[in-house]
């Protein structure tokens, strides 16, 4: 198991290097210059600007700059945010937990919707329930997250006035009240993201269960008199989940995209809204770091998927 994990981690290294290279090349090819404002600012003498450029190595050849940047990243020196006036790594560490909390809870919500609905639709294909669920699933993944977000704000914050539509990091309450406020403000972002995910997962679960439920060993299990619930959970679902895990891992990058949108709409102080603000403020080190963190998260989730395969299907050995 640990050797398997180690090997998977080693396989992830070239991917990470490749991603960092893509990001770096994009930024290097871009016509914008992080010191462009310094050069035109009359308060900064040209020799100071030149000294700064030399200090940050902006005039070096691109390969050298990449190596410098990579070494600095590995040392934990992620640069300095010009807009927030603090180190990028502290800035990201401050905001990462919020993002992980929102993404994590929405994934759990999506799972809680997709598993029962998908299985039930597959057990009774083309029934009324299946058709309604199918239609709702289509509506769910055809609604862009920003549309759902706005609809939710319109309905729950403006008309009904039940939920706050701005996510606050500084709630001035304590104890149970604090948890309640936190819960209330997390409902809308988590639901928006979770329902979008749940809609597409429902279809994956349905089609996958539909394939497995016809197989001979399921008939055998039923013929032996195994209760239906146990057949579904132990025999069908466990095997049906293997392809679902693959598909879910493949959609992870899109989930982070949805997280960026949701964070921006509800003003959740996570790394997604940090990215948008950094882009609007031309804060290059933050843009680089956040995009890189998102890529690392994608690879991390792929790794989790690999481990899940082995747990779901022991034939996929940890070798």
């Amino acid at each position, binding site marked *: 198991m640990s050797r398997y994990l180690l090997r998977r981690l080693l396989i992830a290294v070239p991917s990470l290097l490749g991603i960092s290279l893509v990001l770096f090349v994009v930024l290097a090819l871009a*016509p914008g210059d992080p010191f462009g404002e310094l050069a035109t600012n009359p308060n900064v003498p040209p020799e100071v600007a030149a000294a700064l450029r030399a200090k940050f190595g902006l005039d070096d050849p691109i390969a050298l700059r990449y190596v410098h940047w990579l070494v600095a990243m590995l040392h934990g020196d992620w640069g300095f945010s010009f807009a927030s006036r603090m180190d990028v790594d502290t800035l990201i560490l401050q905001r990462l937990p919020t993002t992980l909390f929102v993404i994590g809870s929405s994934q759990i919500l999506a799972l809680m919707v997709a598993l029962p609905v998908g299985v039930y639709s597959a057990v009774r294909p083309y029934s009324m329930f299946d058709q309604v669920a199918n239609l709702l699933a*289509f*509506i769910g993944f055809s609604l862009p997250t*920003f549309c759902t977000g706005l609809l939710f704000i319109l309905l729950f914050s*403006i008309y009904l006035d039940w939920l706050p539509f701005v996510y606050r990091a500084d709630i001035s309450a304590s104890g149970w009240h604090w948890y309640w406020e936190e819960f209330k403000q997390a409902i809308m972002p988590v639901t928006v993201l979770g329902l979008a995910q749940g809609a597409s997962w429902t279809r994956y679960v349905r089609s996958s269960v539909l394939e497995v439920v016809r197989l001979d060993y399921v008939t055998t299990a039923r013929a032996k008199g195994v209760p239906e619930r146990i057949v579904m959970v132990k025999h069908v679902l466990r095997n049906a989940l293997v392809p679902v895990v693959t598909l879910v891992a493949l959609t992870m990058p*899109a989930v982070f995209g949805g997280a*960026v949108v949701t964070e921006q709409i509800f003003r959740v102080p996570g790394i997604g809204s940090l990215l948008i603000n950094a*882009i609007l403020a031309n804060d290059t080190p933050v*843009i680089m770091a956040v995009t890189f963190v998102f890529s690392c998260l994608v690879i991390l989730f792929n790794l989790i998927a690999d481990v899940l395969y082995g747990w779901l299907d022991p034939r996929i050995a940890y070798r």
Partner: protein
Amino acid sequence: MAGSTLASPIADAPAGLAPLAGEATRSSGTWWRFRRHRLAVAGAVLLAIMLLAVGFGPLLWQVPINDIDFSAHLDGPSWSHPFGTDDLGQDLLARMLYGGRISLAVGLAAAIVAIVIGTFVGAIAGMSIGAVDAALMWLTDLFLSLPPLPLLLLLIYLFRDPLKQLVGPELGTFILIVAVIGGLRWMPAARLVRAQFLSLREKEFVEAARALGMSTLRLVMRHILPNSLGPVIVAATIDVAAAIILESTLSFFGLGFPPDIPTWGRILFDAKDYLDIAPHWALFAGGAIFLAVLSINFIGDGLRDALDPRTSA
């Protein structure tokens, strides 16, 4: 080549007969299966109506899109403004019809870019053995683990101004958005095409063509590619939907088209600050995006069933 491709079934069908079997009967079979998918037909009709509306609507509804009239500011739907007006009193129906052209055109163009790149990469990977194939698939996997939205925002932000100066604001943004969305969504098509090529190139009819001395390029163009396009068409419809969503997301962040080009996403972006007093503004724009994407997704689902008889059973 293009004429015969749409009707091709996927590779697992008896492809050995492909050049001989009656083209008409097979395509009518596909059409018949597509027609049985009621939601897909409904989606096709809805999309056709939307295409007609944005195509010919501006000719019939000749209200200018930027006619400012503060006396009609933030009005709800009425006879003179069927979709209401925005904060400057501009007619929303006219703006939606004009913006819809761009939103739908971006979706189609970006999907075409994605499919062309994907087919090209997949075809090369599928026909070559060893290092080239491995390298291309590594590249595909690498792109699959890049988070598209952050990268998209980054690319648009970095390259927007230079392109604008080069070819003008409207065309520049269009080219950039289409190129970037297409360039970040070609991977599924590449994988599908490669998988099809791997199985098709071992089939007897390909071998026969090769034995007759056909060049590899001609073999690919005449026999392998047309037979591998079924799943790619389904992927293309999904790409159109995804591209429409991505474009409106960009506009929603204020990073898409400039304010004087009212794409649906841009209208929604402008409307979101007036949700409480003029909800019709956001609802019409959001509804248009939603209906377009929904109908395209239904069409894709119907095509999947129609082109792959195994799954519709």
